[in-house]
């Protein structure tokens, strides 16, 4: 495979980018478990979404460019899409959470049977 | 080669292309332009009938120059047999195509009277159903068979629900769920066969079987067994047929009529694959294709169908049970094996499909005579909301010419159908049963006849008898017992399809000689599939070549 013929500096750089990216993504996902409530959990995956992904993309660009012998930066598109689309989900989730919280609060005032999914 | 023969070379693909193009082009016209759609549908169905008739004729070996031995091999995309998909036409597929075309035309004409208005896109779905059935009969490729079975199933899902209503939806839900599961099973079987043998072409598969390694062989057999179960499901064999009475009993009658050939797709696939897989390797077919299994399953199916006819209270459901009976008889007969049995079974198949097809349409007309009649047919006229009203610009009762003596027609047709499904003389049902029974005796020594022959005899005759009792009961109840019989207004286009189908059975009776000559050859070619395999693997018409394939980049 083409992975074999890359210079050592690129090897090192790409490896560290990958490791950093993956660790960030892992931490971010761990945030899903470690953070206490829905609203704070939303912040966790952002890590993977931004810098984690960025690192991986950089590594990918690096390797691809070296093996292609020219600059390949299609990966920018991925960043573009992720950044452009993530507010949509985040906003919807957070609003849904806010709505639920309000309903729950209302329910605590007048206890009823559980009607949520 | 002139233009005519050139077009003729493409004949095998006509039965698939015609309905496809017709069904698709109909969609270009909005729902309100019914006349245009109807005209397209009629033209397409007629053309399909013509093509099927031509193919059935070709299959008799009429054009040895083009298709030697009457086996037409059409290499789709111009790719040679084991790699590309081939359409193969032999006598068996020719008969099935013709049968389907006839049934399609008659039920379409019947549907024109009122049923096509019960929901949108009926015509397109109908064409696609025809396409699927034709494709399943023609294809020589295992996975392509799956695709066409899906085409016909998908269209049948739409059609079985055509008109909606609680009964239909309930039956349709079961029908769809089970057939979806069946599709998975089919897929597993096909892919396992591919995994073991590395090919998808049925003829190629048959040719490769003897050379399979032991382990592959077992895997292949497991795959074939799973495949067989899927086909048995489609064929309506016990214990996989409980959906059938409800689905067929609830479907709109013209739909049910064309459905009566749908179970035969399963039988066809069993026959075809059974013949190919058992053929040259000599090792015998895998379990569900093998005789003993078919026989046993067929018997129980027959028992269920027969018992069902006796218990059914609703005429259309009764006919649905007749379909099961017919499947049972077929499977039992095929399971018994024997030289003449295949052709006799084919004759029975033709006869019973025509009979049940006519019967389904007939029951609906009869049910119209019952003023207190409730059931599935009442549903589509109910409107669920203001936007669901049936278009008043095309009221129910103004299409076509009203035929006189409606009750006499219904009565006679009912008797004819009864005779056909129970196998009483003089229509083709009797001939079919006679052929089955006499083929069962086909052994050099009477004294050595196995018990299974007598079981078959008892089953066939017993089911006839019980069918007589049940249908007699039903007929008496429908025609004679009810105090409130209204003479329905029958259109010519409703009566004619039934009449045509019944006349065809009469013609089949009169022409049993030529018909059996044709079918005997069809049956015997099933017993010796080498010709089929050779025809497929040695290539098709001379027009195929690779020279003008596109080059690389």
């Amino acid at each position: 495979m083409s992975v074999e013929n890359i210079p050592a500096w690129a090897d090192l750089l790409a490896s560290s980018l990958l490791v950093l990216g993956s660790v960030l993504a892992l931490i971010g996902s761990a945030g899903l478990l470690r953070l206490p409530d829905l609203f704070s959990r939303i912040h966790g995956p952002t890590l993977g979404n931004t810098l984690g992904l960025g690192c991986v993309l950089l590594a990918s660009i690096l390797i691809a460019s070296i093996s292609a012998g020219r600059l390949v930066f299609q990966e920018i598109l991925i960043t573009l899409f992720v950044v452009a689309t993530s507010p949509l989900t985040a906003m919807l989730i957070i609003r849904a959470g806010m709505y639920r919280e309000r309903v729950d609060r209302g329910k605590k005032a007048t206890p009823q049977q559980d009607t949520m999914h | 080669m002139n233009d005519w023969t050139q077009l003729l070379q493409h004949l095998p693909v006509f039965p698939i292309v015609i309905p496809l193009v017709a069904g698709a082009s109909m969609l270009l016209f909005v729902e309100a332009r019914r006349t245009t759609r109807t005209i397209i549908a009629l033209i397409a169905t007629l053309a399909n009938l013509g093509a099927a008739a031509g193919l059935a004729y070709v299959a008799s070996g009429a054009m040895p120059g083009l298709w030697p031995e009457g086996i037409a091999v059409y290499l789709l995309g111009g790719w040679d047999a084991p790699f590309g998909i081939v359409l193969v036409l032999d006598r068996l597929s020719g008969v099935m195509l013709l049968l389907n075309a006839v049934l399609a035309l008659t039920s379409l004409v019947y549907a024109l009277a009122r049923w096509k208005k019960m929901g949108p896109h009926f015509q397109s779905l109908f064409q696609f159903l025809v396409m699927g059935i034709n494709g399943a009969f023609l294809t020589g490729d295992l996975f392509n068979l799956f695709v066409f079975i899906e085409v016909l199933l998908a269209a049948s899902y739409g059609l079985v629900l055509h008109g909606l209503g609680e009964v239909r939806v309930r039956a349709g839900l079961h029908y769809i769920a089970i057939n979806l599961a069946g599709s998975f099973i089919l897929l597993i079987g096909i892919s396992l066969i591919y995994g073991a043998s590395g090919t998808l072409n049925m003829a190629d598969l048959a040719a490769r079987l003897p050379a399979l390694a032991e382990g592959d062989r077992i895997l292949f057999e497991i795959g074939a067994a799973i495949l067989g179960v899927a086909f048995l499901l489609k064929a309506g064999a016990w214990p996989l047929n409980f959906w059938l009475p409800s689905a067929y009993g609830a479907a709109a009658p013209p739909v049910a009529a064309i459905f009566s050939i749908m179970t035969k797709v399963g039988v066809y696939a069993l026959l075809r694959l059974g013949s190919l897989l058992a053929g040259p390797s000599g090792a015998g077919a895998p379990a569900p294709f093998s005789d003993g299994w078919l026989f046993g399953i067929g018997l129980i199916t027959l028992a269920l169908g027969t018992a069902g006819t006796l218990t059914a209270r609703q005429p259309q459901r009764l006919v649905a049970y007749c379909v099961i009976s017919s499947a049972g008889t077929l499977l039992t007969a095929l399971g018994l094996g024997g030289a003449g049995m295949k052709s006799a079974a084919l004759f029975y198949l033709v006869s019973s499909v025509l009979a049940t097809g006519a019967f389904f349409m007939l029951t609906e007309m009869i049910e119209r005579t019952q003023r207190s009649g409730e059931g599935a047919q009442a549903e589509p006229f109910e409107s669920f909301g203001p936007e669901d009203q049936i278009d008043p610009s095309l009221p129910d009762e103004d299409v076509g010419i009203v035929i006189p003596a409606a009750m006499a027609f219904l009565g006679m047709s009912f008797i004819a159908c009864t005779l056909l499904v129970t196998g009483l003389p003089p229509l083709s049902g009797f001939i079919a049963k006679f052929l089955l029974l006499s083929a069962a005796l086909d052994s050099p020594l009477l004294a050595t006849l196995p018990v299974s022959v007598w079981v078959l005899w008892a089953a066939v005759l017993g089911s006839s008898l019980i069918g007589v009792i049940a249908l007699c009961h039903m007929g008496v109840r429908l025609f004679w017992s009810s105090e409130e019989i209204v003479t329905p207004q029958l259109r010519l286009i409703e009566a004619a399809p039934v009449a045509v189908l019944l006349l065809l059975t009469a013609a089949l009776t009169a022409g049993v000689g030529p018909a059996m000559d044709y079918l005997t050859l069809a049956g015997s070619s099933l017993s010796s599939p080498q010709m089929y395999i050779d025809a497929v693997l040695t290539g098709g018409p001379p027009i195929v070549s690779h020279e003008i394939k596109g080059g690389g980049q």
Partner: protein
Amino acid sequence: MSLAWLVILPFAGSLCAAFVPSHARNAAAWLAGTVAVACIALGIQFYPQIAEGEVVRATFQWAPAVGLDFKLRMDGFAWLFAMLVTVMGALVILYARYYMAAQDPVPRFFSFFLAFMGAMLGVVLSGNLIQLVVFWELTSLTSFMLIAYWYHRSDARRGARMALTVTATGGLCLLAGMLILGRIVGSYDLDVVLASGNLVRAHSWYLPALILIALGALTKSAQFPFHFWLPHAMAAPTPVSVYLHSATMVKAGVFLLVRLWPVLAGTEAWFWIIGSAGLFSLVLGAYAAIFQQDMKGVLAYSTISHLGLITLLLGLNSTLALIAAIFHIMNHATFKASLFMAAGMVDHETGTRDLSRLSGLYRAMPITATLAVVGAASMAGVPLFNGFLSKEMFFAETTFVSGNVITRIGLPTMAVIWGTFSVAYSLRFILQVFFGPAAKDLPKKPHEPPRWMLLPSGLLVTACLVVGMFPATIEPYLDIASRSVLGPGIPFHSLAVWHGLNLPLIMSLLAMAGGVALYRALGKYQQGTAVVPLINRFDGQSIFQFLLKKLESFAGTLTRCLSTERLQVQLLLLICAVFASALIPFSNGGLPAGNQPVAPVHPAFALMWLVGGACAIGAATQAKYHRLAALSLSGGAGLATCMTFAWFSSPDLALTQLIVEVVTLVLLLLGLRWLPPRYKSVDDKVVPLQTRLRARTRRLRDMALALVAGASLSALSYAVLTRQAGEGISNFFLENSLPLAGGSNVVNVILVDFRGFDTLGEITVLGIVALTVFALLRRFRPAPESMGLPVQQQVQDAQIPGWTPDPRALLPEGPMMLPGVLVQLLLPISGMVAVFFLLRGHNEPGGGFVGGLIVATAVILQYLVGGTAWAESRTRIFPQYWISAGLLCAAGAGLSAWLVSRPFLSAMAWHARLPVIGEVHLSTVLLFDLGVFLLVIGATVLILVALAHQSRRGHRKPATAHEEPEAAVPAATPRVAEITADLAQPHPISHAWAPAPAPKEG
């Protein structure tokens, strides 16, 4: 040829009669009469040949390959019978013309009558065993229609059903018997069969054949124990009884026995089977006849008895007995027909046939009475009437029987007893009806029937007398008939009134005296109801009904046992069937160990499937109450699947699976809107313990099955995965994809070129489903619980009272505004991506399918963000046309190959070198892929949008509330795409209150 006319003519007449208007009594009668007379004439015309002992044959090719030929064969016996059928037919037609009321649909009667006549002639003249069965069943059928002629009467319906059931059963047995017989002989040709008597009798299958054929004959001839249908068939109009139940149809059974006598008779088995059936019918029929209250009932049982006599004669294995039997067939036909006619006349004129009500009719109807007396005398076997002659022959035969003491003594004794009985019932029949004091309170005032109605009866009675007094007149005919059955070795026989004082005469006298005595002795008893002492409980009819009922309940049980309506059971069976069938090959050799080295497990992959598996199991546990959770969990499993495809070098699959995953998720969510949630608390408490236990058992069973299913599929795939793949077809694709098909993405080349036909079918499926979904949703009635606005919207929108979104706003209003901005930009970008995937599909991952789904998803995204009205206020999508265009495009790409005489779907490519652009590569494959692309867009959008459109209807009240038409969706209609119009309002014409068509904006 004229032989064929003999059969064709009645059927043709029947067909004509069917078209005669139902009130034209005379026309139909004339038609029928003409046919019958013509048939008589035809028959007579054969007499010279027949008298010579010739056999007239006519063969028509039918299906020689299977031994079926249409062969007519007339020998003496057949001629005699044919004459019987035609002459009787003619007489009955005359009689029926006057018997039938004007308001009855007489043409129908004559139509069936003639058909029956034709069938009967067919039976008589058949020269082929199977053909005989055909006509045989036809007689059953036509007789069913004739018996049920007055179908408004329940007894007629019941009688007809019973007759049909019994005789059809017999017919089926006969078919079986004939098949065996034909198989033994090697031909169904009657001539061949008749010549092979010794072969048949010696064959090991003789007994089954005999039994089956006997069953056929005995049921038809109403012989014990199948006799019970005949009395019930008396519900038929009297002409029918005259014809069918005295002269012809019931004779078909004995006809058959005579016909096959040379083949089957002469054995012990024949004697016992035929003889005993005959004997029982003989005695029991006569016995039961004594106690009947209905005139026709007496005659019916008498018929059973007389047919028993004939059967017994045939069973005696003696040639003289055979001649006697033939003779009695004729005699019985004449006298019984005349008696039936008399009974009919009495019924016709008085309105009743009840013996206990009738009396002294001779005053009012002297001619009828005379005719009846003669007929009855003949029936009783009084000398000088024809019945006497054959009875004497019978008595004589009983005395000649060899065998043990019981038969030797018993048979004559029984004969005498029979004679006694028949005298008794004949006496009763006559004395009760015509003599004694005049009856009062009859439904009608009796008087003599019309002259033409009397004529047939008179002719028959004359025949009785002539034959009875001058037997020589009948002698030649009898001789011809017997000779044709027995061949040249016919024994000497003579018909004479006086044979001297011999044993038979003594027996006759004994019987006569006994009969008179019996009648007198029973005088009182008979006035009661029609209960037959001693054997009443062994009533065949109630046994028949009982059996029928049992059969039905058994069928019900069987249906219940063998099938179920429940889906779960069906699916369970399906899965079990798959197991069972897969186990068979497996058990033959076990699953062989693999021979391929296994790749080491990558921990990441394993962990990924840990996730996937957990998601799958989670989905399985959550699907009942937490649908959304199950949905997201299955999304997780789907993602793992997709990743697996990516991992194992299948980018096309990964792409497709991914985008399908997304679309499916949206689809299911759209569906969830209409599926009211389930609550755990509701159905857990009230369920009794037993049900819960059963549910738990079921769950355990399903769990086990699921485990087994999973394990076996996994074992199966492991077995394949670890085996070296054989030399399959795939190498061809890999090697030739680039050189021959010009594409480097082999998967895509397979999809659009090598196996493009599959793809064509596949997109058709998609199109079909979209159409179906559309059709279904057009008449969709959502669950009432989900009809209203979702609770979320109610709560949230309540905060902003009076707020209704403006569909024409530039951006979706409210919280979705910003997403709206982003999503608007996404649409063109997605379009580019889609085209990108479409165009390069041939060489790189992608293709029309992925491209189409991308566009569809982008479109759906617009709906998702802005709502239906907003999205449709600015685009017009006609998914139906896209589907159509896609299919036509793909099909057109396939058809274009025909232009260059290549098979359907052959790829054609053109290369061109343009100045600036460089090499341009065009191919029909691209057109095909474009078709896929278009169809996928159309189908997916149609499915999703059709579902989304439901909420536009959902806000309305259920169907009943017509008064608030479109008000609930204010201002939503303008510029709504036509699909909306199609979905929400199937036909604008159909409701006048529909809003005016939307104004088009530029």
